[in-house]
């Protein structure tokens, strides 16, 4: 598979692992916290992410087990940023692709800066989404998550 250098570099160590969440809102909020900690979004972007999910409905879960919560650039995005949250018990979005175990949140300050990263993400998911979800579900630590992503994408 082609190298996904941009994806891994942008993700960095913004990965998290939780056993379970109350509902999809909590999952989205948690995934957004990583973007906030990194300084690439304003706090209101997280509210934007929740609103976007409400607007897009279940379609934020784009393939089996995976959702990509995000908001618009004008909702407080300061840079291109990516995070990955694993919810071991899964979370329901009301989609054919439920339960969601992997939330990949992102931000972009405009409609173009994130394209390379999103294209790499698309290629990864196209080829390895099933594998990715299967392994990430069983991860026991954030470190393991990073190892899994690196291994599957190489």
């Amino acid at each position, binding site marked *: 598979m082609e190298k996904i250098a941009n994806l891994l570099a942008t993700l960095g160590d913004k990965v998290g692992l939780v056993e379970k969440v109350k509902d999809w809102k909590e999952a989205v909020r948690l995934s957004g916290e990583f973007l906030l900690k990194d300084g690439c979004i304003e706090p209101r972007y997280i509210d934007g992410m929740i609103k976007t999910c409400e607007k897009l409905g279940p379609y934020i879960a784009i393939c089996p087990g995976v959702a*990509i919560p995000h908001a618009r650039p004008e909702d407080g995005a300061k840079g291109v940023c990516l995070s990955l949250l694993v919810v071991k018990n899964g979370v329901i979005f009301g989609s054919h692709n439920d339960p969601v175990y992997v939330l990949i949140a992102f931000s972009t300050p405009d409609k173009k800066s994130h394209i390379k990263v999103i294209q790499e993400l*698309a290629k990864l998911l*196209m080829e390895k*989404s099933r594998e990715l979800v299967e392994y990430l579900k069983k991860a026991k630590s954030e470190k393991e998550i990073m190892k899994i992503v690196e291994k599957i994408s190489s």
Partner: protein
Amino acid sequence: MERRKPLKIVCICGLGIGSSFILAETVRKAVKEVEINARIEVADYSSSVLADADIYVTNVSFYEKIKERKPHAKIIVVTDYTNHKYIASELRKILSL
């Protein structure tokens, strides 16, 4: 089926910055598999302007809306935005390949 112009395929979903780009990559791969000459675009759904396309690729929620505006449109509906094989087989059906 001979085509002089490339087929115009428009991907429509959500905000047009995340899922649409992912869908576009999947369509790109499907187009390669089917070996056709196509131009792939990403568009927001807007109630005032709907981009003209030979084929739309979208999710269930936009299907009805697009069908209403363009009753003769060819629309591929997807639930898995990464399933290029499904899109390739739908393209073959539409193009009678």
